[in-house]
């Protein structure tokens, strides 16, 4: 019989337990105040803000281009995805469309970072429930992905890869072939992970029927991304409001049926397969041409031109020191980040920086659903539920 908090006998002594902020299972500095009736959770209150760095205030004092490195530090497991989301929002504000090659590369890096983010989730989720082997496998593949990111951007973590109107650099030689070969190998790896978990009795016992989130609650609480889809709601911004040419790519949106921890596991595993499918299509039809829009007032000129032509030198100087002028207006643009809907809400009063910018972070909004999922479950299940929700505190606290 399911546990009901309404039927707690009067006089029952409840216990308050503080979980976190530094607890290995809270995935960063998340604190939970749990009220317990024996082993059952009666109330759960998340306390956040330990990583707050005031990014939105910083944005008001930086030019749009200067803010790109800060986006790396939002969801630090998928920095490329954040770079792309921010660049798209600013491009919407100044009404610029990127080149086909730039769009294709952006899709490729978004999907690669989705795989990377999901691999970290899978490894740590399994460790939290005692399956340490999976962690070793997923981190081995993440290492390969980090090597790709390093070859592409020069850094493993703080990529700062996009520019408003383009990218910081083109693909290195042989990059697509290497990625293609890795994708072939990774598909087999993914099957291996599944043999370790999907039908593993212990795994299923620990996850199935745990932390159920109904579709109605998920929508009411604003949950997005894999967590929402696991609850059975078909919603993916790549399909609903396609950006960067996602409409021309073929992929499925996996959805769950029960909305429990196991469904969230299945959905993310399938999302990795779909990301592989998208990467393959992008690699196959990678267009040539420039990676920057042809607008000297917006993108930095070639180094050679800067050293030989006066106007280009002036353009470079103005863009670096003053930034570009954005029109007055308000835009909201969201992408389907690995964690869900990552939105940038920019209020511009003109000038080179936003008057106010809100970062709609999927982890922050998703975390609000945690109490709903935890109530009535066992303390040991709370660990599984947090892991399945996959919050990244860098993005929650900003």
């Amino acid at each position, binding site marked *: 019989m399911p546990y009901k908090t309404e039927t707690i006998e009067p006089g029952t002594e409840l216990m308050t337990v503080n979980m976190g902020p530094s607890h290995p299972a809270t995935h960063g500095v998340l604190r939970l105040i749990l009220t317990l009736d024996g082993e059952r959770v009666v109330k759960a209150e998340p306390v956040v803000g330990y990583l707050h760095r005031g990014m939105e205030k910083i944005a008001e004092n930086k030019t749009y281009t200067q803010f790109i490195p800060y986006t790396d530090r939002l969801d630090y497991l998928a920095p490329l995805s954040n770079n792309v989301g921010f660049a798209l929002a600013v491009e919407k504000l100044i009404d610029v469309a990127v080149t086909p090659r730039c769009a294709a590369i952006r899709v490729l890096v978004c999907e690669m970072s989705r795989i990377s983010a999901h691999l970290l989730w899978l490894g740590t989720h399994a460790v939290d429930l005692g399956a340490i082997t999976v962690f070793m496998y997923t981190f081995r593949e993440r290492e390969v992905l980090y090597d790709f990111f390093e070859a592409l951007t020069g850094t493993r973590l703080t990529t700062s890869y996009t520019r408003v109107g383009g990218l910081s650099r083109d693909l290195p030689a042989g990059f697509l072939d290497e990625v293609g070969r890795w994708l072939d190998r990774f598909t087999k790896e993914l099957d291996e992970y599944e043999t370790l978990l999907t039908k593993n009795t212990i795994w299923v016992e620990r996850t199935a029927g745990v932390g159920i989130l109904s579709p109605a609650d998920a*929508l*009411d609480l604003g949950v997005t991304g894999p967590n929402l889809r696991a609850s*059975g709601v078909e919603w993916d911004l790549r399909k609903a409001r396609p950006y960067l040419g996602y409409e021309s790519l073929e992929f499925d949106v996996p959805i769950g049926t029960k909305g429990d921890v196991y469904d969230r596991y299945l959905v993310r595993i399938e999302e990795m397969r779909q990301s592989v499918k998208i990467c393959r299509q992008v690699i196959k039809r990678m267009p040539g041409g420039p990676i920057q829009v042809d607008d000297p007032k917006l993108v930095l000129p070639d180094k050679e031109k800067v050293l030989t032509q006066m106007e280009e030198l002036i353009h470079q100087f103005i863009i670096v020191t003053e930034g570009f002028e954005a029109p007055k207006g308000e835009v*909201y643009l969201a992408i389907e980040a690995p964690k869900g809907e990552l939105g940038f*809400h920019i209020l511009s009063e003109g000038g080179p920086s936003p008057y106010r910018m809100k970062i709609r972070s999927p982890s922050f909004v998703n975390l609000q659903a945690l109490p709903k999922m935890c109530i009535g479950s066992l303390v040991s299940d709370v660990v599984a539920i947090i892991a399945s929700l996959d919050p990244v505190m860098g993005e929650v606290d900003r």
Partner: protein
Amino acid sequence: MPVGSAYKGPILPAAHGAEVTRRAVEAVSAKFGQAVKEKISFRGEETLLVDAARLPEICAFLKDDPDLRFDVLTDVMAAHFLDRDYDYEVAYILSSYPNNAVLRLKVRAGGRLGPGSVPTVTGVWATADWQEREEWDKVGVLFAGHPNLKRILMPEDWEGHPLRRDYPMEGIGA
């Protein structure tokens, strides 16, 4: 589909969503007449500036109307101004998953418009709880009727609201 039952799919084309957004703008203007102060279109996004006092009513209408079904509150953003008739502007991004539509509602408060408070929409969408808490924490606009309006990103004993325009970049007393 009966009103209130959760959307499960399928995702409709964005063109249908744009059409529903247009219908929503018309429906709100027709039903709430005087409460709609301004209609703004920018980069394909529709915004309605409405009377703050009528906000929960308008939100409930947009959510419950069987044709519109704005079932998700995606984002809340508050901004502080120093040299205007009003102190605060709060923007709400409403999404209709069943129709794939988006609409922005905007309200103004404070200054010559009266007290710096906006009625809460937590009664319409549960997600407004944290989102409104966050905006109050950062900007200082009050959400009247909010069940649990306390600090969320800043420490509990913090003084002031750091995203106000009169709050120094280096912090107060630094």
